[in-house]
């Protein structure tokens, strides 16, 4: 059996969610690695669009910022925040966006703004950046995060980026152009997906060796539990090798 680390499994599973030809809005970190892996395997025609503007760059490993020259390398145009977030994303040309947040709730809403009362923040987080825009306009949303109970509260302290807000039709009612996006949350324990009937998260796949009970225990809200939950396929040795050698050769994000 292949030896792999939890972060590597997350990246490999996220890469599987990218189709060939997809226009992918992506920042840095594990999402960027997932994109690079997809591009080097089953999705050679995937097109990166970076929020800062670059279109279809040949990203050099391993960028640590959306302002990194590595995300401009070989791009067909450099663009601007307006051209990427307005002209591509709000225009409706994106297929997939990657998001993250300090909190993810039952409806897959994300909080990257503030812990505690917004008026008197206990912890001030960085804020939306382009995240709200990505969540508002993407037909498919991928979230990669470590599975810790504090990250999965019943309700976000602040909704920075909309999931299904508070019910299955809430996005449509609030005017969002993509009313029913696919949302997948990829953790080291499982893959969660939005159930369209309720607008809430359920477990779609479990990481090898993980039981539903463990996932539920580490989650602050009740998860939808299907009768049968398949396992996440573990990565092949070749893929793990590719990841370590070419996608993040310096181990910038995939440390032990």
């Amino acid at each position: 059996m292949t030896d792999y680390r939890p972060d590597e499994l997350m990246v490999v599973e996220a890469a599987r969610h990218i189709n060939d030809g997809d226009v992918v809005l992506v920042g840095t970190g594990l999402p960027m690695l997932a994109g690079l892996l997809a591009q080097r395997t089953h999705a050679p025609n995937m097109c990166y669009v970076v929020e800062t503007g670059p279109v279809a760059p040949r990203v050099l490993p391993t960028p640590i910022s959306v302002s990194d020259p590595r995300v401009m390398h070989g791009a067909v145009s450099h663009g601007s925040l307006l051209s990427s977030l307005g002209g591509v994303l709000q225009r409706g040309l994106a297929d997939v966006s990657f998001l993250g947040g300090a909190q993810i709730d039952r409806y897959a809403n994300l909080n990257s703004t503030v812990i505690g009362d917004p008026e008197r923040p206990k912890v001030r987080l960085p804020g939306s950046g382009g995240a709200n825009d990505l969540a508002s306009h993407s037909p498919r949303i991928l979230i990669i995060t470590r599975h810790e109970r504090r990250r999965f509260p019943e309700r976000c302290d602040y909704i920075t980026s909309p999931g299904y807000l508070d019910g299955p039709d809430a996005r449509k009612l609030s005017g969002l152009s993509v009313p029913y996006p696919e949302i997948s949350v990829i953790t080291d324990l499982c893959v969660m997906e939005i159930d369209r009937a309720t607008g809430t998260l359920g477990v779609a796949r479990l990481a090898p060796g993980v039981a539903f009970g463990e996932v539920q225990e580490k989650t602050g809200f009740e998860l939808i539990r299907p009768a049968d939950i398949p396992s996440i396929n573990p990565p092949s040795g070749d893929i793990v090798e590719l990841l370590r050698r070419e996608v993040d050769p310096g181990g910038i994000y995939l440390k032990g």
Partner: protein
Amino acid sequence: MGKSATNKLMSAAEAVERFVPDGAVLGMGGQSIGRCPMALSFEIARQGKTDLTVVGCNLAMSMDVLVGSGLVTRTECGTGNLERYGTAFRWRAAAEAGELAVADYSHLGMASRFLAASLGLPFMPIKSLLGSDILTTKRADGPDPDYVLMGNPFSIESEPVALLPALSPDVSIVHVQKADAAGNFAIEGFSTHEPEMVKASKAVIVSCEEIVDPEYFRENPGETTVPFLFVDAVVHQPFGGYPTSVYRRYEHDREHVVEYQRVARAGGDEYADYLRRAIEEPGDFDGFLAWALTDDKKAVLRDEMERLI
């Protein structure tokens, strides 16, 4: 009533003195660790311009030093963030201490507000933000609302749209690769929110790596990001974006950024000491560079960039 094509070359000190009043709404260019207007921001801190409202998209170190210097009462932005290097820590601390009003937007929200003002429009519609607490925590009514929700009057179906008010900074500061003395300038690589913000601003100070000949942009008009009509002051400051990166010129200085983040997180005497050594004592940005950066290091940062483009 555009700005004339006169010689606008001046020092950062003169530019800030003339065009940045106390109480200004200050537009800030750059993003995260890329092309931030460090020289101009340090000069504003040095002159102690106070009661500032700093606006932009991904504000980072050039905003953080102004907050850390106690000069900022409010920010309006998408994020205060250096990504892998962490939050803008003085900004975070001031927000948590209740000393700073933080108005949150998405990047597209901010870019849309600048776009509106750059086109002389009172507002811009947006389809982001809907349903999120970025809107619900703001005022939608009264005589001076933060935003307005309306139904799309061109749709038969009910379709809410948000309107955001135009944002026209009193003065914007940006650092770019090339400018001429009249204020024509070129941004190379991604241009963040700067084209819209600059064109939306009442006054603009541009610092640049390189001053080009007055004929340069007339011979290469396709390179011009913004023509002189919008620009008031041009400051020639090589390495004026240091320690952030400037595309095609130099990489960011990881060590300096890490050290800044360490002292910004620590606050107190350690941070005060950084401000003293980086801003007060050197007297100007060349002095700062002489303290922070050897010629060898400059060459290394240039080489690193060279390998990435």
